[in-house]
């Protein structure tokens, strides 16, 4: 009797696999008596320099998991359990967090990390262990180049740098730009590199490039140097923690330029740190709550009901990444690493931040939005397609 039951279960599983179009899976898992929970790890920094990023990512993931579990889980009733390791916004803690998730918690897949530098520290560990890693927000191209188990849910730095260069050249109509680059951040250097390429290719000139470190607090000397070159725009691809003081000190130094940035600007803390100096700036982002698609509206309502705040792009991408992973597990019909990897690579997914298919480097092809900062608020400006 028992054998018969399990045979029926196996047949249903195989059938469901065939129906979802993912028949490349050789063996279906043995059906458990009670549906076993699926452990998913995440490495989001809920303390440290980019704590608001980590918290938003965690919120987005938790919301998605809750919704998925309430709707019956994955693989026919198995629940997703999230284990978050806080890497304290530190690169060295990230490697430890990945090790722990893989060896101690034995997770099936890892969501994270947030910053590109952190993901780059964790990716080789996930790759070596054959555990699929899906970073919601690491935009540096090198992250997915680590190996075929590494994916991301966001567009990459070249695209973001190009979008801002194109925006400066075409929408703002300027031809001179200065760049302030955080030298100990892969994210900042990546954006700057591609901004320069696209800006110069479009006929613009980079009149100054100044470096600083993420621990610096005095930017007055490099800002004086920037001021001396009289640029029309200043590109500051960094996270809000350093962008805030830079904008404030730029205001004190009377720099008459439009400040541009990337998705690292996306935090309410920016207004707290920069005050009214943030007004008039533009940055590229993954999603805007004002975009008005049904996915965005549903996500907004659910997020606000649970966390009582407007979700930022980090939350949106983490939410998308969680759903993407769940869809991949369902399509793989298994929690085995290679199966999830193959399912992710072949996925076609529509979420809050747009429609995602992966290119051959496991980078999503999707659109970006430009946000303007006006009166201490983020205002949707435009959508830019790849």
């Amino acid at each position, binding site marked *: 009797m028992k054998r018969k039951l399990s045979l029926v279960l196996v047949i249903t599983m195989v059938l469901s696999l065939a129906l979802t179009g993912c028949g490349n899976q050789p063996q279906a898992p043995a059906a458990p008596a009670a549906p076993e929970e699926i452990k998913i790890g995440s490495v989001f920094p809920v*303390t*440290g*320099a980019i*704590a*608001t990023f980590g918290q938003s990512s965690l919120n987005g993931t938790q919301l998605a998991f809750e919704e998925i579990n309430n709707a019956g889980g994955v693989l026919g009733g198995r629940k997703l359990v999230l284990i978050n390791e806080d890497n*304290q*916004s530190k690169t060295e803690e990230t490697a430890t967090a990945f090790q722990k998730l893989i060896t101690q918690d034995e997770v099936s897949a890892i969501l994270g990390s947030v910053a590109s530098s952190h993901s780059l520290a964790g990716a080789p560990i996930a790759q070596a262990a054959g555990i699929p890693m899906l970073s919601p927000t690491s935009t540096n191209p090198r992250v997915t180049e680590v190996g075929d188990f590494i994916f991301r849910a966001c567009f990459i730095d070249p695209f973001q740098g190009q979008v801002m260069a194109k925006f400066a050249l075409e929408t703002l109509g300027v031809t001179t730009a200065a760049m302030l680059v955080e*030298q100990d951040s892969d994210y900042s250097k990546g954006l700057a590199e591609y901004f320069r390429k696209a800006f110069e290719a479009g006929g613009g000139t980079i009149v100054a490039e*100044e*470096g*600083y*470190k993420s*621990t610096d*607090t*005095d930017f*007055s*000397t*490099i800002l*004086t*140097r920037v*001021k*001396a070159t*009289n640029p029309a725009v200043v590109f500051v691809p960094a996270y809000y*923690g350093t962008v*805030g*003081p830079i904008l*404030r*000190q730029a*205001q*004190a*130094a*009377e720099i008459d330029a439009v400040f541009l940035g990337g998705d690292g600007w996306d935090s309410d*803390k920016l207004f*707290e*740190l*920069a*005050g009214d100096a943030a007004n008039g700036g533009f940055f590229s982002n993954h999603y805007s709550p004002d975009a008005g698609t049904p996915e965005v509206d549903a996500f907004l309502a659910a997020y606000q009901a649970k966390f009582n705040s407007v979700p930022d792009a980090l939350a949106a991408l983490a939410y998308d990444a969680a759903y993407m992973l769940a869809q991949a597990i369902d399509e793989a019909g298994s929690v085995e690493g290679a199966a999830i990897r193959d399912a992710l690579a072949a996925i076609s997914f529509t979420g809050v931040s747009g429609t995602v298919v992966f290119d051959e480097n496991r980078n999503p092809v999707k659109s970006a939005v430009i946000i303007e900062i006006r009166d201490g608020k983020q205002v949707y400006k435009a959508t830019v397609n790849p």
Partner: protein
Amino acid sequence: MTITQQILQQLINGISLGSVYALMALGYTMVYGIIKLINFAHGEVFMIGAFVGFFSITKLDMGFFPAMFTAMIFCAILGVLMERLAYKPLRNAHRVAALMTAVGLSMLFQNLALAHSWIGASAKGFPQVFPLRKFELMENVTISSDRILMLVIAIFLMIALQFIVHKTLMGKAMRAVSLDKDAARLMGINVDKTISFTFALGSSLAAAAGVLFALNYGIVVYQMGLLPGLKAFVAAVLGGIGIIPGAMVGGLLLGVTESAVSAAGGSMFRDAVAFAALIIMLLVKPTGLFGKNVREKV
């Protein structure tokens, strides 16, 4: 901007930064002068001072000056407690023991700040308490009202310190203890009280520096004391550790040097140059710039 304008503007940037280093270096140098201890927790006193100022303004709705005064008093008490609880029991121990205690205290304060729910890890924006006004010294060379305020307060505090050290009885006791602790005790000077007073004075200057720094650079964060603390130590050594005017000059010199390096395009080397200056000074003239000429030590 012409080259002259740039140089002048960068000089202003350097002097502003230097005045913060100078205020902090005074605390290092006074403590060293009196008990031969490099108080590595001094940078954290700076950070705590900045946070006390920050919370006095944001949570208690104080004005800027009362907030700065509160921070100075708070840190003066903190300095005394630090000395009484951590350093005094080690006064006759090996000097390395006291030094390691100082390093430990520094980490303790940083981590307490990190763990405290009011402070935490993320940076906070210091409120723009005064409307931003700028004064044009010449075309393209400006100084903001906040910077003028910082310089004026720094100079005022340094003059006040000179007055305390040279014109008051307590100052005389400080100088005596720094010259010879045992002889001073024989002369009826309360050595413990004098050392406590020195810590209070140095810590309150660090607190003032912290609040001024936060006002000008717009940020308070738990690790803000680390680098300025080390730089102030370099400044104290540059000027000649234990010598008060040396700390002031060393601080300004270091601030201007750092800005000059950055202004010449070496913004990534500013910290390296600051610490290279320390090594060179120790090799060439270990007693510091003022090491020989001024014998008076506090």
